[in-house]
């Protein structure tokens, strides 16, 4: 008889969350910030550095496990792994941690993201050592950037603008729809003392803000933040003895498809299944739930229209109906049917590459958000929804 198939469903939980202050210029290194966030997360959980035996992080994270072992005094790591891509890696780190815990490869896993993004911040010269990676293109292009950069296609805003323009063309989405996302998230941030941008904005403010890459305006773009976020995961059994109410990882999934931001497909095939929609199918299948069961969603929002596409991918509305959905306020706390990015997200709280969204997801499960959804039992947290991507469902 073959053994029952292993699953990560309900096997692990987030028991600690930690962060540094979010700022435009921290004055300290990314290693400093990572260490501070990790210590805060361990303290939150009531666990010690000596109990950490696993690390899961972004492949492109500048602070590596060696720095944490010798820099923080982690005595012995049994598990260490990374997830490829940038913002597409957010949820994947939690999936890796849950896999390690479910299979006994680790018992206490730390996941984190540390970033010095500001132009005046403390960072190194290499592309991944903080600052704006795209500003560090070499004079000679040896990878696929040679098909983009010589034409002036440089930044993620420009790349994503091409995709959003196509969405507008096919479905009638407007920049006012983008603005509905930005305005709601700023209203959420106004209640959040941790947020970098708290001054309320109107749709008129959004429409008056300067172009970055049409159809994207300044107020459609994520902040450029210095800061770090960390989470501590352990087994569901052990989680019950920790200091905080656990946020169980009900399900997690990743997907890579043909719609990568940088591979010139530009959603030519998005009438077929996008990677985000593929993740949704895996995720809801593993969890045995549908979008209707989700109480709050923390969507990766490097740009405001990413929320519109994510609402479609994850089944909160039909393909192409994301614009009217946000125009009706369905994404806005407290009255919308699916409150989105209740901390203000990357547009208004901070841009920690989506990792602050995990922390807000946990706060919603614990009942401690500044925009708390009543009786919040199930939260969706996603990675950037161009390829590759991923998502997790956290439950109370």
């Amino acid at each position, binding site marked *: 008889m073959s053994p029952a198939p292993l699953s990560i469903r309900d096997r692990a939980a987030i028991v600690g969350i930690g962060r540094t202050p979010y700022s435009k210029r921290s004055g300290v290194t990314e290693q400093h910030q990572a260490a501070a966030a990790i210590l805060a997360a361990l303290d939150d959980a009531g666990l010690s550095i000596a109990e950490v035996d696993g690390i899961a992080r972004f492949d492109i994270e500048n602070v590596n496990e060696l720095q944490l072992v010798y820099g923080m005094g982690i005595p012995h790591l049994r598990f260490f792994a990374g997830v490829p891509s940038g913002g597409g890696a957010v949820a994947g780190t939690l999936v890796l941690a849950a896999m390690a815990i479910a299979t006994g490869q680790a018992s206490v896993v730390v996941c984190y993201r540390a970033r010095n993004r500001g132009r005046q911040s403390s960072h190194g010269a290499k592309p991944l050592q903080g600052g*704006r990676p*795209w*500003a560090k*293109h*070499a*004079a*000679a*292009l*040896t990878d*696929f*950037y*040679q*098909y*983009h*950069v*010589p*034409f*002036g*296609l*440089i*930044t993620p805003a*420009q790349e994503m*603008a*091409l*995709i959003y*323009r*196509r969405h507008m*063309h096919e479905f009638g989405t407007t920049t006012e729809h983008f603005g509905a996302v930005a305005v709601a998230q700023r209203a959420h941030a106004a209640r959040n003392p941790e947020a970098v941008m708290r001054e309320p904005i109107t749709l008129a403010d959004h429409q008056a803000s*300067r*172009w*970055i*890459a*049409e*159809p*994207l305006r300044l107020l459609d773009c994520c902040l450029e933040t210095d800061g770090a976020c960390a989470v501590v995961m352990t087994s569901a059994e052990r989680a019950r003895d920790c200091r905080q109410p656990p946020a169980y990882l009900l399900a997690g999934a990743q997907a890579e498809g043909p719609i990568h931001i940088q*591979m*010139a*497909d*530009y959603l*030519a095939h998005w009438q077929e299944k996008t990677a985000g929609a593929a993740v949704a199918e895996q995720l809801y299948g593993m969890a045995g739930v549908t979008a209707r069961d989700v109480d709050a969603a923390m969507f990766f929002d490097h740009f405001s229209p990413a929320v519109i596409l994510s609402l479609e991918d994850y089944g909160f509305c039909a393909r192409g109906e994301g614009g009217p959905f946000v125009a009706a306020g369905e994404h806005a706390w407290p009255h919308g049917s699916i409150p989105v990015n209740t901390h203000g997200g990357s547009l208004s709280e901070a841009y920690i590459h989506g990792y602050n969204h995990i922390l807000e997801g946990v706060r919603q499960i614990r009942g401690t958000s500044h925009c708390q959804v009543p009786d919040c039992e199930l939260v969706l947290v996603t990675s950037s929804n161009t390829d590759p991507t991923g998502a997790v469902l956290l439950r109370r």
Partner: protein
Amino acid sequence: MAEIPVPVPVPDADNQGFWDGCRRGELRLQRCLGCGAWRHHPRPICPRCQSFACEWALASGRGVVHTFTIVHRPTLPAFEDRLPYNVIVVRLEEGPFMVSNLVGGSAEDLRIGAAVEVVFEPLDDAISLPKFRPRRAR
């Protein structure tokens, strides 16, 4: 102020045929010898039939604008003097998509579905960039 150079593509074994074609004023794309599918960007294997065999076939140079953006700040220093500028994605008649710029047109020409044709602009002695201009009915 000295002109800041645009970053220059460095050809490799997988894309030498593409850049050689551009230098000669020809849009040459990979066409699979296994199944006949055209592809761009250049890559060593056909994603449709997994054949490594391909030829550098002469494409029509015609296509339509699939999507576009108008770039404002920020950009790289090399592009500052042309702000604001357009970036387009062209859907070529042969099927593949290509990032480029629309040149020699007016604001009305910059729209999804606009018919375009390739022209080449030298970047240096070895590299010319395939750009696109409006294709008028003749």
